[in-house]
């Protein structure tokens, strides 16, 4: 580089041609790095922290606690069983147009099923993409009073995104 007549013994930045080439490349590289960092940071922090999957899991755990006791299915479970009260869930949050949903099926002789909340989630749970409910599905066994296995299936969903005031 220093053999180049244009540069001679002067500062690189005093040589117009050289400094132009260098500064253009430098500015270009810095701009690219800067834009990528700024875009990445803004994208990361502007996307809301999604806790819908966690909410579905918590809801599922609450339902399990409501129907089971030491691995046994509670004896008082029937058509009149108030699942919302037993699970400690707020009834107003499980409206047909709300942000929450659950479907609990007990495969015993009676074949009891409890469904509450936004029923549209049953379909949304199978769809992928933004704006759809996030769901959690669980299948397990409990024992009845005679020691027989009873299959339990729980599907829970949430689409709550929160709100800026």
């Amino acid at each position, binding site marked *: 580089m220093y053999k180049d007549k244009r540069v001679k013994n002067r500062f690189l930045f005093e040589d117009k041609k050289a400094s132009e080439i260098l500064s253009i490349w430098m500015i270009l590289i810095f701009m690219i790095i800067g834009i990528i960092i700024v875009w990445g940071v803004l994208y990361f922090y502007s996307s809301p922290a999604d806790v819908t999957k966690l909410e579905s899991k918590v809801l599922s755990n609450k339902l399990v*606690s409501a129907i089971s006791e030491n691995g046994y299915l509670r004896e008082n479970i029937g058509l009149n069983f108030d699942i919302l009260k037993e699970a400690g869930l707020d009834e107003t949050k499980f409206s047909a147009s709300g942000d929450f949903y659950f479907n609990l099926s007990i495969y015993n002789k009676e074949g009891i099923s409890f469904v509450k909340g936004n029923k549209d989630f049953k379909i949304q749970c199978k769809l992928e993409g933004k704006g759809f409910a996030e769901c959690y599905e669980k299948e397990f066994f409990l024992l009845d009073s005679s020691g027989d296995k009873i299959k339990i299936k729980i599907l829970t969903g949430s689409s709550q995104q929160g709100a800026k005031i």
Partner: protein
Amino acid sequence: MDKRFFENKKAVEMLMNNVIIIVIIAVFFAFMFLFVGRAGAQVTIAEQTYAKQIALLIDNAKIGTIIDLDISELKIISEKNRKELDNAIIINNQDGKVRVALTSKGGYEFEFFNNADILWSINENNLHMEVVENVQG
């Protein structure tokens, strides 16, 4: 360093060029670090994070649970924005909502589905919550 080094114009020239470039790069990355650091400490992010965190804690809690949540980060942000920490967090048992507002305008609201009542208070850097049975049913 050898005195002759500074007498060598080419060497000085090279050194100066490198120093200038290093300084420019250092300034550029300092700005980038500052930007990333500031973006991470934004009010809206803290409001959203804490509102969701508190709501999830309440949802997961059983009757009789006592929760102490460290909110020193919120204290720093609210003090910066001249907002009292006592008014920054509101847990509304009637609507089942947690509201976190660290500035005089705006805030973030998140619902919880637990039917229990939450007795809460703010002590210094802690949000103290007690989950008790909802007497109204």
